[in-house]
């Protein structure tokens, strides 16, 4: 096949979108949307990197637009990209691992389109109106109409709300899938299934001589526990959005509500409690569960220390509910006891829970030597390295002494946030995508092994390099949410931009490789209705 034919029909014409089940199409749609939004995030990130070097070279970006990009960038990354890929994968994996159909494919499609449209709405509202209170929304900034357009802000919050409604539908679908009884099946023990999924069975097994059988597999348990945090997070963000909308609607009707009606510190505690359920909750739990799943799939072996892994997931869930105060260590009005217990001590537990997941995954891989260094394995090792770098960086900044000189510097967002997200989380997701690609596409072949290897090295070196140079600037006092007009940190920012450009090249190589694997017709075919009328995950074998 020549290049044009491959671009049109995919590598060797192996991908046939007409052979896909509705479930395969749903999952692939989530992945395509997630990757497109990831591309948006990478381009936005590069624009900000250029702006950080010299504002004048960032393709005409003005300070107001810079902050609007800074507001949209993490939200598009988490909701538009990561949520799409993760939700798509889990809506497939939970029924796949439980060997029963998804509770509702229709609701899954609602989740997809609500997240897709919601992300576009808040991104576009920010792009047009420059609404830029950042994702932290510190009160009363989101309702400061002397700086921001009320209408732009209203659309922005509505976009976020749409994403949260889609998220709520995902939560319902996951838990219903775990407990429901499909037509023609024997009645499923819903209560016992939910206890097993939430880890209560595993926890009692640790202290009981009579061990109960686990009714759900470990990856399903991890997904269920992360989904609990997803639900709480959606509730907090929705409530906060409604609160801000009240101020916006009142302003639109000519009534300016008093900002002091809301206590800024209480609001900050409330919002960080919810927001941290993403950063320190569902991300860590989902990632640990994905590591376990990938390790067992790659090796074909049982997970090392499975009961400990289950217990650690349960502890991580409780930790995620009580850890938020490490974001308020520089808030002097925050009670000292909360700073020490929640901020320092509970946060230190993340070193333990994530360290256990790291060890258990490596030990499982080790037991199956020799392994072939496949793309899923190398990306999995990259993901493990990412969290091994980023979690200790986070533990250090969650210390009362060190936080005093690190808070809001580039250290926080470089070695901790970007290394965790880009290397830890994203490389884990890439591992899953490379592993699931042949399953979800009924045997499509990867266009180029070399491009996949380039993708790995460019992403790994670009991500670690960018995090490192941002961290070095942070240690020299560079703040994370301001603009330096006099080139104070140019040497670090040029190196970070070069590293960032490696990330962009890595993504372009990956995207090109995937498009050439399935072909343009294949990508379009994914969004066409399935011709197979089945709730089965995979087509029946001929």
């Amino acid at each position: 096949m020549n290049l044009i034919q491959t671009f049109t029909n995919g590598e060797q014409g192996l991908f046939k979108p007409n052979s896909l089940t509705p479930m395969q199409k749903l999952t692939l749609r989530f992945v395509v949307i997630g990757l497109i939004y990831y591309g948006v995030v990478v381009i936005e990130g590069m624009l900000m990197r250029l702006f950080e070097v010299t504002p004048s070279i960032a393709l005409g970006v003005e300070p107001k637009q810079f902050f609007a990009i800074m507001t949209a960038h993490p939200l598009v990354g988490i909701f538009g990209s990561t949520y799409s890929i993760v939700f798509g994968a889990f809506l497939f994996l939970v029924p796949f691992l439980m060997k029963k159909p998804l509770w509702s494919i229709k609701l899954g499609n609602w989740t997809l389109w609500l997240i897709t449209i919601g992300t576009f709405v808040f991104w576009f509202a920010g792009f047009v109106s420059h609404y830029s209170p950042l994702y932290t929304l510190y009160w009363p900034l989101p309702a400061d109409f002397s700086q921001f357009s009320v209408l732009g802000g209203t659309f922005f919050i509505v976009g976020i709300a749409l994403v949260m409604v889609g998220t709520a539908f995902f939560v319902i679908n996951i838990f219903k899938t775990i407990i429901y009884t499909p037509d023609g099946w024997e009645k499923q023990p819903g209560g016992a299934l939910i206890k097993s999924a939430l880890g209560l069975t595993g926890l009692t097994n640790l202290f009981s001589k009579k061990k109960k059988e686990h009714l759900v597999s470990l990856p399903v348990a991890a997904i269920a526990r992360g989904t609990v945090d997803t639900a709480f997070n959606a509730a907090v963000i929705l409530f906060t959005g409604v609160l801000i909308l009240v101020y916006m609607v009142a302003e639109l009707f000519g009534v300016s509500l008093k900002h002091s009606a809301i206590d800024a510190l209480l609001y900050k505690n409330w919002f960080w409690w919810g927001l941290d359920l993403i950063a320190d909750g569902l991300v860590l739990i989902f990632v640990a569960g994905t590591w376990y799943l990938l390790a067992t799939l790659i090796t074909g072996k049982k997970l090392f220390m499975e009961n400990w892994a289950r217990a650690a997931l349960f502890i991580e869930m409780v930790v995620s509910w009580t850890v938020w105060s490490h974001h308020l260590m520089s808030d002097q009005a925050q009670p000292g006891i909360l700073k020490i217990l929640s901020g320092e001590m509970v946060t230190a537990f993340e070193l333990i829970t994530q360290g256990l997941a790291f060890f258990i995954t490596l030990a499982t891989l080790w037991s199956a030597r020799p392994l072939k260094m496949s793309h899923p394995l190398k990306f999995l090792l990259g993901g493990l390295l990412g969290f091994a770098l980023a979690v200790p960086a986070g533990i250090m900044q969650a210390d009362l002494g060190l936080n005093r000189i690190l808070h809001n510097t580039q250290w926080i967002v470089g070695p901790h946030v970007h290394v965790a997200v880009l290397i830890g989380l994203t490389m884990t997701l890439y591992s899953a995508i490379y592993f699931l690609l042949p399953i979800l596409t009924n045997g499509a072949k990867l266009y180029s092994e070399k491009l996949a290897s380039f993708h790995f090295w460019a992403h790994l070196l670009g991500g670690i390099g960018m995090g490192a140079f941002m961290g070095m600037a942070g240690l020299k006092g560079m703040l994370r949410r301001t603009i330096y007009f006099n080139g104070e940190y140019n040497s670090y920012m040029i190196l970070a931009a070069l590293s960032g450009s490696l990330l962009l090249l890595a993504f372009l190589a990956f995207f090109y490789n995937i498009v050439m694997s399935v072909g343009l017709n294949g990508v379009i075919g994914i969004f066409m209705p399935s011709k197979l009328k089945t709730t089965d995950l995979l087509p029946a074998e001929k």
Partner: protein
Amino acid sequence: MIDSNVVLTGQTIAYTLYVLAIMALMGWFAYKVTRDGSGKEIKPAIFYSFVGFLVVIGVSLHIVTHETIPWKPMDLNRAEIKADKEFHITMENHEFRLPSSKLIIKKNEIVRFNVESKDLTYGFGLFRRDNTMAFQMQVIPGHINDILWQFDRPEVYSIRSTEYSGPKGINMIVRDVVEVVD
């Protein structure tokens, strides 16, 4: 009191060594996992030792910093500590309102900065002439935001808002306004 630059140097060395070690470990693991092995599982004793190691590291980090970083216990007990000097600073409309055009501090004096916001959430940080940070705190409207600091050497500092308060806040810097003298 020990300078914050010294603490950051220590952190840089410790974290760099850790990064090099963990990258070397992962490189070694990636190499070895593709080579022939016995297929034996790792002994649980190694796992339990690792758990114990993580617990010790997690807890001892905060104990060590409490004993070695002087502003940490000072911050936790600041309500009981009497300051040698106190400055009351107000922030409003993206501007600092200082009690005088220069804030002069004698070396080794314990100083309390009491910062009040009249509208938005801001930050308050002192920065040296080479742009490195001495310390910072958040400034929340409707709450007391105070910090104690002891300066151990003559130096000139700028005050800068360390928290984003909208695009209007990007110029919230008062240069060379704090002076520590012998």
